[in-house]
């Protein structure tokens, strides 16, 4: 199909340098239409604009959008209360301090973010911000807010509320869980009200993926009214979202009512009811027994009865949720990169995915660049099990007869089973892993060097939850000054590559640097990432239009029951 050059030129005149860069990339065929939409969304191009550009470029390399449960063909029905099972929030539902899957889904029921990271489409969508753009360097990001949005108390949302929210979240003197994201990125003084509908973020360093950090990925960042007392938030749940609080009872459940004044239109459902559970088996039984209509998020282990049944709709999401095996680069025998590579070559990853995850996972290539991130460089070859090579590497490193080393890990989901599989695989090349499986409290300890089995053990196997961008995974566990560097990996080239990656605003640069990082990590192998775990949500077939995310929040504004 022909390219409409004149129309394209007309659009280009009014676009920023960065936007034109992406148009160039698209025209040249260096990025797919899907990546264009993803990255265009990050830099704040509207979907209608991107539609016009894509149309002007012709349908040459069109890719169909993924089929998802969110886009069912039948006509939505109004009414009814949707009942869902979920993990009980571990602590108070305080937007500043929530740090667990149960709590963050509660925030997402009545609260909204500047941007929604739609995990089903793998793209950013406007939520409370209608558009956003970066300065040329990527150090200042400006967000235009959606007009006419009302909080549940009737107050209209303005820039003051957004500024208050982010000043609190980024304040090192406040007990904010979002500090793990904002430290080194944003300080309270960097949050600036430009006018009543515009907010600018002046970052500590250029950050090409900043929109992800104010999106639903950063689950603490729901916008609350200026002056909100966060500790008391759980008595009102005041946000701007499609549902308002009906009742919340610790450890028991929560129910919500449709918000008739919702800016996106009143939801189809009359209300929702969440039942809290502290473990997975009762949730599965409750779904099978018809006491709930769905489970917000579950893991494949122990859920065979759901996965193997045609009685349930399973929504599967690619996620960056992964397991990381670190080896102390400063402790023999792992001082030798060949020994670390031998460990990586000993593992049978496809078998792990089928045995531990019921097939619902993606191969890991010993770097955080998984299939969830558009910037991952897929041209770097995937590592596979090679026992002969592993033995050869061990021999070259002077360990022809193998060695034994402790492997410490935590009691969490499938991890103890994974540790057993790793032990069995390592035994095949003569390495004896002495397993120690601890409770999470013992394992993490104080989470600082010298006070944590997680960070101090010779080999340590830990979980990393899902994030929208790989920045935290690249920095904290792997850079020389990273706070969670359990491998004690110190590599100046790596540090500078990460710095470049984080600052890079355009996708092809990010992807080029990602390729270099992936290659470097394969050569050095400070850590092993065997797989990424898909996010799983189950509902009965009568439930439609639910939109879960891989961090285990679920959006129900378009949900209905037939």
């Amino acid at each position: 199909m022909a390219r409409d050059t004149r129309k394209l030129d007309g659009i280009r005149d009014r676009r920023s340098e960065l936007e034109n860069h992406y148009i160039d990339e698209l025209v040249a065929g260096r990025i797919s239409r899907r990546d264009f939409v993803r990255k265009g969304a990050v830099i704040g191009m509207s979907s209608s604009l991107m539609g016009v550009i894509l149309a002007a470029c012709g349908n040459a390399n069109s890719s169909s959008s993924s089929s998802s449960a969110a886009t069912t063909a039948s006509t939505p029905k109004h009414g009814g209360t949707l009942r869902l099972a979920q993990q009980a929030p571990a602590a108070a539902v305080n937007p500043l301090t929530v740090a667990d899957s149960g709590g963050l889904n509660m925030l997402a029921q009545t609260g909204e973010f500047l941007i929604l990271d739609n995990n089903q489409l793998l793209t950013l969508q406007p939520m409370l911000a209608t558009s956003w753009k970066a300065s040329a360097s990527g150090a200042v990001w400006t967000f235009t807010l959606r007009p006419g949005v009302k909080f549940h108390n009737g107050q209209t949302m303005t820039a003051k509320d957004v500024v208050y929210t982010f000043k609190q979240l980024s304040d090192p003197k406040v007990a904010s869980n979002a500090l793990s994201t904002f430290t080194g990125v944003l300080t309270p003084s960097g949050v600036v009200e430009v006018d009543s509908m515009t907010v600018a973020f002046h970052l500590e360093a250029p950050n090409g993926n900043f929109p992800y950090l104010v999106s639903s990925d950063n689950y603490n960042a729901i916008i609350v009214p200026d002056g909100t007392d966060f500790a008391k938030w759980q008595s009102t749940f005041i946000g701007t979202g499609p549902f308002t609080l009906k009742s919340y009872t610790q450890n028991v459940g929560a129910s919500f009512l449709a918000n008739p004044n919702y800016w996106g239109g009143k939801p189809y459902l009359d209300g929702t009811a969440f039942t809290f559970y502290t473990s997975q088996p009762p949730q599965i039984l409750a779904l099978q027994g018809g006491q709930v209509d769905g489970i917000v998020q579950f893991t494949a282990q122990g859920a065979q009865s759901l996965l193997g049944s045609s009685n349930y709709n399973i929504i599967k999401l690619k996620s960056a949720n992964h397991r990381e095996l670190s080896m102390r680069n400063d402790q023999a025998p792992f001082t030798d990169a060949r020994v670390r590579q031998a460990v990586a070559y000993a593992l049978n990853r496809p078998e792990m995915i089928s045995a531990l995850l019921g097939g619902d996972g993606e191969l890991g290539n010993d770097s955080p660049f998984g299939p969830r991130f558009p910037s991952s460089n897929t041209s770097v070859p995937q590592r596979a099990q090679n026992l002969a090579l592993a033995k050869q590497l061990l021999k070259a490193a002077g360990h022809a007869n193998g060695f034994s080393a402790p492997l410490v890990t935590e009691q969490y989901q499938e991890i103890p089973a994974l540790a057993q599989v790793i032990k069995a695989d390592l035994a095949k090349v003569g390495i004896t892993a002495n397993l120690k499986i601890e409770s999470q409290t013992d394992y993490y300890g104080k989470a600082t060097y010298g006070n944590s089995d997680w960070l101090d053990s010779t080999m340590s196997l830990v979980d990393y939850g899902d994030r929208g961008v790989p920045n935290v995974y690249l920095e904290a566990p792997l850079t020389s000054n990273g706070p969670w560097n359990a491998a004690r990996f110190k590599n100046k080239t790596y540090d500078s590559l990460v710095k470049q990656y984080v600052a890079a605003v355009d996708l092809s640069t990010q992807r080029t640097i990602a390729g270099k990082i992936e290659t470097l990590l394969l050569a050095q192998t400070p850590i092993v990432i065997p797989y990424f775990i898909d996010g799983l949500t189950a509902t009965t077939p009568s439930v439609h239009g639910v939109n879960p995310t891989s961090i285990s929040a679920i959006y129900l504004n378009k949900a209905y029951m037939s």
Partner: protein
Amino acid sequence: MAIFILKRVGLALITLWILSVIVFFVGQVLPGDPGRAILGPLAAPSAVHALDQTLGTNRPVLTQYWSWISHFVRGDMGKSYSYQTAVAPLVIKALGNSLKLAAVAFVIVVPLGIFGGVWAALAAGKPRDRIISVVGLSSTVIPELVSGIVLILVFGIALNVLPISATAPPGASIPTQLDHLILPAIPLVLILFGYIEQMARAGTIEALNSDYARTAVLKGLPRRTLIRRHILRNSLLPTITVVATQVGYLIGGLVVVETLFRYQGIGSLIVTAANGKDFPMLEAGILVIGVAYMVATLVADILYSLLNPRIRYQAAE
């Protein structure tokens, strides 16, 4: 009798105080701190510090203990670190739930166990005795997790005759609430039946072999009267002790059943509190179980003394 009860209450108060000290100081030895437990292992150290400051958990240990106990004795259980709400309503609600479940299990298992034990003893050594004893002992060793899941699968899902959640919808009538509690009570019945049956059986056999029983038989007392008036009364004594010592378990030890059947009882409350290093909730929960346990043993002692006059004389001395 009044002095006996007073003495026991005084002892109980001292025991509870020692318990509160142990819980507090043992809690300090556990790794982690409340701020870290709330914000998770990956939270920024500054955020953890700020939260500990707000909660007051970075004060000296003795100051924290004093501030807690001085409020507690005035009836203020304090505020939960994790949930940021008053502890008292949470604990009272959980205790109410635990008592309800325990009561249902008790009402089923105590008569069943005593009847089974006496019935088995009357046929001591015969097949009936063997069957009851083997069944009783085997059911005692079935973990609640196993029996609970089997029950849910059979009655909750395959037959779909009983609700699988112990929590009835809010505002449910008493019959509905009972309906929800039957399934979770069965694993407890299975575990306790063996204990009670064995004690009742042993007590009955001992009573049957006693001189007074032989005398009663020889003087021509009908068998039924003999059992009711002489045997039962004596065989029940050890059974009461066993039942009383199980109260602590029935109220505070049902974590597995509470988790499986999604029931907010005091057992799961304590586990949650311990995991979160939520000291005010942990103390309140454990002390509540302590009180329940002491009340149960006190009631057992009083019952015991009513059935056995010898105890009364000793207490009065």
